[in-house]
């Protein structure tokens, strides 16, 4: 069996960024639960910011952006992490997924994750990220992970487990979804014969 391919996309802008930190934690949580070896890759959108903007203007991706998009769309599982900017995912995060070809993420198992300065924005997972991936027809794992600044130090409280627990649960869920994704049939580049297109139009 070939190694399962896990890709994390982080839209964090700082160096180091807490989004990248969360992406790494999640990646590790998934990898540990996968059967056999996994091919793991983290893509930092900061490195592709100008390429993403250019692709929006020209309509086609630069070679390195194309390579990153292909890594994402050919993955067996995706971890998507964004900082919260102005009450939602960051513009760069959204723009990257805007230049991915329509339909390319259909059926993709995804863990959504976000970081922010306060826990008050944690619903961004369910109000912004989940609907976006639902539109892209991805399969979003039940557990999303939101990390506020305080989560990096605390051990949870009476009502909430620590960040590590949520990371572990999300990792388990994504790891469980990935083998089925890897076994998907690859659609051949088949053309619809022209007679069929004509026949479909006959009154």
């Amino acid at each position, binding site marked *: 069996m070939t190694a399962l391919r896990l890709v994390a996309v982080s839209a964090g802008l700082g160096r180091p960024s807490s989004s990248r930190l969360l992406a790494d934690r999640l990646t590790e949580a998934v990898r540990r639960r996968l059967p056999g070896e996994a091919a793991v890759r983290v893509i930092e959108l900061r490195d592709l910011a100008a390429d993403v903007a250019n692709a929006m203007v*020209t309509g*086609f991706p630069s*070679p390195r952006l194309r390579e990153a998009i292909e890594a994402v769309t050919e993955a067996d599982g995706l971890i998507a992490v964004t900082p919260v900017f102005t009450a939602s995912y960051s513009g760069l995060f959204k723009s990257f997924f805007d230049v991915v070809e329509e339909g390319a993420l259909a059926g993709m198992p995804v863990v959504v994750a976000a970081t922010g300065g306060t826990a008050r924005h944690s619903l961004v997972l369910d109000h912004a990220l989940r609907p976006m991936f639902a539109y892209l027809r991805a399969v979003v794992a039940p557990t999303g992970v939101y990390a506020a600044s305080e989560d990096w130090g605390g051990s949870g409280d009476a009502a909430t487990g620590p960040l590590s627990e949520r990371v572990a649960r999300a990792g388990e869920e994504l790891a469980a979804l990935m083998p089925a994704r890897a076994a998907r049939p690859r659609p051949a580049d088949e*053309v619809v014969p022209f007679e069929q297109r004509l026949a479909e139009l006959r009154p």
Partner: protein
Amino acid sequence: MQFGIFTVGDVTPDPTTGRTPSEHERITAMVTIALKAEEVGLDVFATGEHHNPPFVPSSPTTMLGYIAARTERLVLSTATTLITTNDPVKIAEDFAMLQHLAGGRVDLMLGRGNTGPVYPWFGQDIRTGIPLAVENYALLHRLWREDVVDWEGRFRTPLQGFTSTPRPLDGVPPFVWHGSIRSPEIAEQAAYYGDGFFANNIFWPKEHFQRLISLYRERYAHYGHGTPEQAVVGLGGQVFMRKNSQDAVREFRPYFDNAPVYGHGPSLEDFTEQTPLTVGSPQQVIDRTLTFRESFGDYQRQLFLMDHAGLPLKTVLEQLDILGEEVVPVLRREFARNRPDTVPDAPTHAALVARRAAESAAAGS
């Protein structure tokens, strides 16, 4: 092989002067450019079709008819004629009329158009773009080949006993190219009919068009029109030339940086590396254009985009001089070298008439 130019017909301010030509200036400039194309020995002039500012060519056959009257050899074409929002009956009539007036020096390139509002302006829906292209062309194809047509489809009012007039010149319809930037369905359509396929080859990396063209060639053979190498392929291209390549880059950069389609995006250097745009000396343009054959196989028509992004008329005419005098003669010679005899020449009216005569002679014997 044919060489020519295609124009979008945009009215764009010259970024170096801030001056915007009037619609009238732009239209007369397009005519001047077409006449110049014939003067410098090019084979084809093709105009776009648009129905929104800042573009002027909403009525291509009107413009081409006028150019036909003032030229002798130039083949007049389009890039593209909207098969989705034009009535196929009117396309059949307009281009047959133009064909008569131009003595057969006419073909056309069909495209869907990607300006959303144009569809509702003409009573159509962009979501049915592909079915519209399929059905409308199926009707157009019959109108030019059958004297009396009974027809019923999904998108247009039915026809009973309809004859499209005038009938095509010598009973041979204008050759049709199908243009597409991204749709395999259109490559398949071109292959099915044995028509030409034109890849605009401007805004995307070549790998993208290689996939479309190889699909078209393969399906052309599948439908029994010939070998894959005999499929009829046209390519776009975009160049700006000066004797010294540094001068070309310096002069073209402000036009590139502010171009309506890709301006304010990647650098000129990145864009020339990633797409077929070539800015440099005539020799660089020759070398780059010759690589198209390696990428796409022997092909029949090469069109260059020369007059856009606000380039002044004087500059465009200078570019055409360089193209006609220094570039195209070398390209003709080099493309002819090692070209297999089995690869067809670009389709002309005379060639199509001769082919039909040969076919009916073969059928009669």
